[in-house]
C-alpha cells in the first residue's frame, strides 16, 4: 500500500467514479494479488451461498421433521450431555486463530519477522485443531448411523447437507493450514525481508502476501460464522 500517492485522490463516495474512470488501476492502493484474492473470495462466497441456499430449500420443503441439531451435536461431558459443546469449542478455536492471523498481518507490515512467524504458526495450529475436531465430529456421526441418504434422527436430507457443507468448509481450512505452514517457514527464513524470489514466481516476496493469506483465513472464519448460525443453531 503506497499511501503517499493516494492522498491527492478524491475520498469517500466521490472516489468511486473517479477511481473506476481513471487510468490503469481501478483499485487504487490495492496490490494486484490482494485484488485477485478478493475476487476469488467473492466467487467462493457465491459457492458457499449456493450450498447454504440449497440447504435452506431442502430443509424448508421436507415434510419429515428436521433432526434437532442441539440434540444431534451434543457431547457427553462427565456423563451430562451438553448441547453443541464441540461446535462451540470449534467456533472459539477458529475465532482465536483469526485473531492471531490479524496480529500476524500487523506485525508483518511492521517488519517484525519473529512475531509474525510465531503468530502464523499459532494460526496454523489453531486450524489444525479445528480440522481434528471436525474429523472427530464426522466419525462420531458416522458411527451413529448418519449417511448422506438417511439418518436415525429425522429428515434424510440432513446427512447430505451436513457432509457437503462442513466438508467443503473443512477442505478450505485444510488448504489454509497447508499455506499457513508454508508461509510460516517463508517468514522465519526471512524471505519477506530480503525480497527472496518465490518458488512459483520470479517476483520478490513482500509482506503484503501475509495480508493476502490473512484475507483467505478470515474468510474461512467468516463462512464458519454463517454455517454455525444456519446449520447448527437454526
Amino acid at each position, binding site marked *: *500500500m*503506497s*499511501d*503517499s500517492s*493516494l492522498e491527492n485522490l478524491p475520498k*469517500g463516495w466521490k*472516489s*468511486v467514479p473517479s*477511481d*473506476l474512470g481513471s487510468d490503469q488501476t481501478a*483499485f*487504487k*492502493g*490495492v496490490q494486484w494479488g490482494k*485484488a485477485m484474492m*478478493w475476487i476469488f473470495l*467473492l466467487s467462493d*462466497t*457465491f459457492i458457499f451461498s*449456493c450450498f447454504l*441456499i*440449497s440447504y*435452506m*430449500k431442502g430443509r*424448508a*420443503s*421436507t*415434510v419429515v421433521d428436521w433432526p434437532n441439531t*442441539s440434540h444431534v451435536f451434543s457431547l457427553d461431558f462427565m456423563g451430562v450431555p451438553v*448441547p*453443541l459443546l464441540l461446535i*462451540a469449542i470449534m*467456533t*472459539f478455536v477458529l*475465532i482465536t486463530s*483469526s*485473531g492471531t*492471523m*490479524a*496480529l500476524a498481518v*500487523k506485525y508483518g*507490515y*511492521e517488519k517484525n519477522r519473529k512475531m509474525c512467524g510465531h503468530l502464523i504458526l499459532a494460526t496454523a495450529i489453531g486450524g489444525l485443531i479445528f480440522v481434528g475436531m471436525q474429523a472427530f465430529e464426522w466419525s462420531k456421526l458416522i458411527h451413529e448411523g448418519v449417511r448422506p441418504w438417511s439418518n436415525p434422527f429425522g429428515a434424510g436430507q440432513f446427512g447430505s447437507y451436513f457432509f457437503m457443507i462442513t466438508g467443503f468448509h473443512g477442505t478450505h481450512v485444510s488448504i489454509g493450514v497447508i499455506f499457513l505452514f508454508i508461509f510460516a517457514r517463508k517468514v522465519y527464513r526471512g524471505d519477506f525481508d*530480503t*525480497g527472496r524470489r518465490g518458488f512459483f514466481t520470479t517476483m*520478490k516476496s513482500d*509482506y503484503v502476501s501475509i*495480508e493476502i493469506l*490473512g*484475507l483467505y483465513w*478470515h*474468510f474461512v472464519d*467468516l463462512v464458519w*460464522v*454463517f454455517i*454455525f*448460525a444456519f446449520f*447448527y*443453531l*437454526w
Partner: protein
Amino acid sequence: MNENTEIDKNKDKPAQTHKIGIYLWIWGLLFVLSFFSYMVDWYQFQGILRWSLILFFMFLKAGLIMAFFMHLFWERYTLVNVLLWPMTAIACFVGLMVAEAKYTFFSRLIYFVLGG
C-alpha cells in the same frame, strides 16, 4: 542482496498499520458475540426470538470480521462497492428459493400426506 536493500530504501514508507488495541477489541467482541449466540441455543429460545437473535449476532460477527480483520473499513470505496453489491444477487436468490421451497412443501403435503 545489495540490489534488494536498494529497492527497500526506495520503497514507500511502511504501509499503514493499526494499533494493536483495535484488533484485541474486535477479537474480544467476537468471543462475546459467539458466546451470546451459543447462549441462544443453551436457553432454548424458540420462534421469532431465536431466529432474530441468531441473525443479529451472525451479521454483527460477519461485519466485524470483514470491516476490521479483513481491513475493508480502511479500503477505498471502489473495492468495498465491488465486493458488497453482488450480495444483493444472493439476497434475491434466497427470496426466490424461499418461494420455491414453500411451493414444494405444499405440493408434498397435498400429494404425499393428504394423498392427492
